[in-house]
């Protein structure tokens, strides 16, 4: 397995995959952090406010990172038709796993980078008080979990379909539904069942009392309860997508 992982790293040379990932993360950071931080409410509740606002940006950028990275890793082989050769050297399942581990660990690393930059940014901009580390760790775990589900799903699609337009369209349309689901409080099932909606489903910081006339005058932030079913669904999806993708890939004819 170590050998296979090293092969994956070798194949990534000259492909700038990690650089691509960093670029997407950077774009996500710019999008997340670009804004006006001068208001009194925001200054005072900055740390919690970020936790309230970020899931939307995460729901756009991390799905796209998963999509791009999984597709690029799989496409290297599709384009060179080298699966034929790989299959004579190694078990299909292990190839599937090696690629998954490479891509998933890189993507999760970028989540970690994103998260660290957030903390540094909050310090620089001087949000009031110390960051509530417990909440931030919870946020990190939630974002990582949602990203892992998506990566495993996208990895499966990219490996199964030679035409990468398939995985791109699935990812784009899924992300689209996911982003929308965050604006639809009346449809909680949508974001709880669609893998792209987990960023919203796992959001635990809520903003209350905000109105378009009074703005933040009576607003306050409060921790919301997250339906425990979501955690179960995520766990089931991780196992399901992994098992199904690997099963189909092993059965695929080349």
């Amino acid at each position, binding site marked *: 397995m170590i050998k296979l992982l090293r092969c994956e790293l070798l194949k990534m040379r000259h*492909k700038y995959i990690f650089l*691509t990932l960093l*670029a*997407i993360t950077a*774009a996500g950071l*710019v*999008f997340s952090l*670009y804004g006006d931080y001068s208001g009194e409410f925001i200054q005072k509740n900055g740390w919690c406010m970020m936790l309230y606002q970020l899931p939307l940006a995460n729901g*756009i950028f991390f799905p*796209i990172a998963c*999509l*791009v990275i999984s*597709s*690029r890793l799989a*496409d290297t082989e599709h*384009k060179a038709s080298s699966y034929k050769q790989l299959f004579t050297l190694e078990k299909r399942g292990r190839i599937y796993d090696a690629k998954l581990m490479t891509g998933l660990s890189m993507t999760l690393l970028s989540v970690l980078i994103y998260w660290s930059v957030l903390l540094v940014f909050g310090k620089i901009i001087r949000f009031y008080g110390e960051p509530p580390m417990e909440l931030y760790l919870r946020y990190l775990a939630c974002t990582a979990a949602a990203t892992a589900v998506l990566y495993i799903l996208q990895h499966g699609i990219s490996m199964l379909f030679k*035409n*990468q*337009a398939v995985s*791109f*369209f699935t990812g*784009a*349309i899924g*992300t*689209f*539904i996911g*982003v*929308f*689901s965050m*604006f*639809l*409080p*009346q*449809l909680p099932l*949508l974001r709880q069942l669609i893998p792209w909606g987990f960023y919203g489903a796992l959001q635990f910081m809520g903003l209350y009392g905000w109105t*378009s006339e009074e703005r933040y005058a009576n607003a306050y932030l409060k921790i919301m309860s997250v339906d425990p079913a979501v955690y179960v669904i995520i766990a089931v999806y991780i196992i399901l997508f992994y098992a199904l993708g690997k099963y189909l890939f092993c059965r695929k004819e080349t």
Partner: protein
Amino acid sequence: MLLRLIRAERMKLKRSPVWIAFILMPIVPAVLGTINYLGNIEILDSEWYSLWTQHTIFTSYFFLPIIIGIYCAYIMRLEQSNHNWNKTLTMPVPKSEIFLAKLITATFMILISEIWIGVLLVISGKIIGMTAALPFKDIMIWCLFGSLGGMVMASVQLIISMFIKSFALPIGISLAGGISGLVFLAKNLGHIWPYSLMAYGMRSNSPQQMIESGYLPYVIICITYIALFSIAGGTLMNRKEL
């Protein structure tokens, strides 16, 4: 000649179900945007205009740019695989026309999806029993201008996809482009930045105001960009060595 090339381009795309995405994608905001509209009906009081915003806000900033990026990458990908450039570039036709034919093929799909977005707006408005008069002329202008701005985006994306052999990278660039478009719009430069022209033309943010710069300047800017990028694309294709 150009007509023949366009017909040839359409044949190349036969049996690639890529176009389905252009049909499926607008349904998402149509359904979910309408639900959101109904949920917030007390704040959203501009009838058709509010509904239009709900339908197109994410579409024009993020998702249509990505779909255009994918489509352009796919068109170029067909040539890049299986040595097809060799054959395509030894056809006795000007290389600039090959580029133009591809651009028109992509634009056709953009136009279809814009019209579809407009049709979906009318359908969902009728379903929820919108009583105000249908602003037919406005919808037509949004869709047409959106297509024109989309064509600018497609011409840039085709050039990028022509040079970058990876499939994913140009699409990432189109997403970044869409975000840059958002930034330029926020800075009131939406009418001159190639990647914001589509969102600017679709007016999803403020459908009731017509374009501040006026119709004619918008069209002129779009056409100038399209001409510029087409010439660049044709020239670059001419210089392409295999």
